[in-house]
């Protein structure tokens, strides 16, 4: 009823078009409600260790493989149980979370940065630049990532910089492909011709007009890439190729817990759950952002 009235009076001097903006607000709230738990998780992971509330994380060989507090035999001194060295599960989960989230963020940045730039270049310049970059993208996408990871890690050993190199190599191509096609469509828009007619340089058009119009897509891609980076790290750590002691991430905790699965399932379960929840949240937020930034989807 109210929507009908609004539709009837779009030129009544009101600067807003409420019907469209309401829909936009809906997708904004979905981003908010997904972002909230994500923010809480990040906050906890970074702040909890500072409060001193967590149980002592050191080894305790008198209390190995304790079940979580809610099972028989568990104690509230170790809410999520202990591992085979008697280290507290919750403390380890929180502390590994820091490294995991850091890897997710940096891993996404190192993939998105070059990916966006190459995609932009390919889409805007066309010609041989486009051909070269497109071939590289296709070649990259044809190689299984585990093969690249194995080759690099076998060569260089596993360390954080090597992990980021692997993440950059495996992540840039899909981002470049999306950016390229988005650029292709933006560069054909008439406002680009108009700017050229006003005497704008190509660099200005690319960085002041094409790139900002890509921003929504890139932010969404980056969010999705955070999820991918965390999964890749987990997979590599599970294979013993990613994060190695003394560092630990959720992936390496999962790997450490796999031998104990039959009798102490909680050692692997909680890091696994943490990865699932985090990646799920990040991906959902990425999808919501994509929808939010796509005017066609928004209008519907």
């Amino acid at each position, binding site marked *: 009823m109210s929507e009908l009235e609004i539709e009837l009076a779009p030129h009544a001097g009101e*600067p807003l*078009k409420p019907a469209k903006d309401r829909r936009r607000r809906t997708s904004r709230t979905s981003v908010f409600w997904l972002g909230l738990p994500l923010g809480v998780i990040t906050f906890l992971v970074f702040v909890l260790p500072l409060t001193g509330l967590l149980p002592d994380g050191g080894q305790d060989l008198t209390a190995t493989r304790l079940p979580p507090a809610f099972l028989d035999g568990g104690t509230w001194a170790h809410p999520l149980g202990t591992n085979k060295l008697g280290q507290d599960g919750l403390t380890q989960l929180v502390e590994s979370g820091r490294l995991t989230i850091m890897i997710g963020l940096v891993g996404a940045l190192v993939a998105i940065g070059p990916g966006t730039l190459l995609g932009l270049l390919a889409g805007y310049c066309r010609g041989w630049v486009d051909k070269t970059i497109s071939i590289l993208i296709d070649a990259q996408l044809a190689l299984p990532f585990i093969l690249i990871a194995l080759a690099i890690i076998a060569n260089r050993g596993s360390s954080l910089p090597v992990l980021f190199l692997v993440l950059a190599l495996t992540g840039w191509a899909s981002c470049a492909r999306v950016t390229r096609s988005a650029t292709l469509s933006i560069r054909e828009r*008439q*406002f680009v*011709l*108009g700017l050229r*007619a006003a*005497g704008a340089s190509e660099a200005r058009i690319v960085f002041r007009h094409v790139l900002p119009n890509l921003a929504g897509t890139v932010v969404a891609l980056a969010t999705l890439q955070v999820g991918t980076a965390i999964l890749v790290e987990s997979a590599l750590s599970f294979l013993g190729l990613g994060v190695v002691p003394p560092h630990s991430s959720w992936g390496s905790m999962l790997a450490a817990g796999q031998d104990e699965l039959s009798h102490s399932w909680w050692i692997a379960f909680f890091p696994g759950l943490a990865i699932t929840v985090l990646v799920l949240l990040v991906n959902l937020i990425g999808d919501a952002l994509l929808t939010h930034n796509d005017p066609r989807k928004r209008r519907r």
Partner: protein
Amino acid sequence: MSEILETEVSADHGRRLRAPEESTPVLDVDDLVVEHRNRTTGEVFRAVDGVSLRIDAGESVAVVGESGSGKTTLAMAATGLGVRGSGDIQLLGHSLASIGRRQLRELRPEVQVVFQDPHGSLDPRQSVRSGLRELRGLQRERTSWIDDDGLLDRVRLTPDMLDRYPHQLSGGQAQRVCIARALLMRPRLIVADEPTSGLDVSVQADVLKLLQETQASTGAALLMISHDLAVVRSVCDSVHVMFRGKVVESGPCETVFKNPTNEYTRELLDAMPGARWRARR
């Protein structure tokens, strides 16, 4: 050589703009050919086939023809915007084939284009105000003659439009913003590529009137691309009829519309809504 030309352009910017030499045409196209090559089959398609066109200062010329007849390609090639063709194109006395990139950029603001889709010709991420500010930053001297409010007043928009984004403008408002942006540059040639096709009929008349006023007040020449003969008749002095890349008939509007010599022109005129009725009268 290039430096000499550039200093010449910037030195007498204002004077050249106000008083173009009467003798040199704004645009003089001779035997323009534009070909598109299909990359997979290698077939060559002639979009524009040996077209000659001359527009003098203050003149308004129309190019009409059906969709795909090469009108837009002709305009884009003739003004050096994107499409490249062979043949001699003199834009304000400079041959497009021989001038360098930097000179072309100097020359560009002299030609402004108003496109068919007004929303597509505005950056969706820029408010009207920041778009105008950017244009001013690009061409400081050229655009200093009028402030934003005055400019919007010229195209009959209120100053509160300045803070709107393109999606908050109606088609007619957006097209007026586009005309304002073109006007701001004080071009010597305005190319209007189907400027009213995307607008509803009541707004079309406003926009056409505005284009005419703009042209009259700045003394710019107008190249109008259209398939709408009624529009052309009300706005332009002379007309070129294009068919499959070739100009099949050209001359003053009245002559061409009253006594079309070419079969295709006659068909085009017959297809005009109300043509029969007018003819009988």
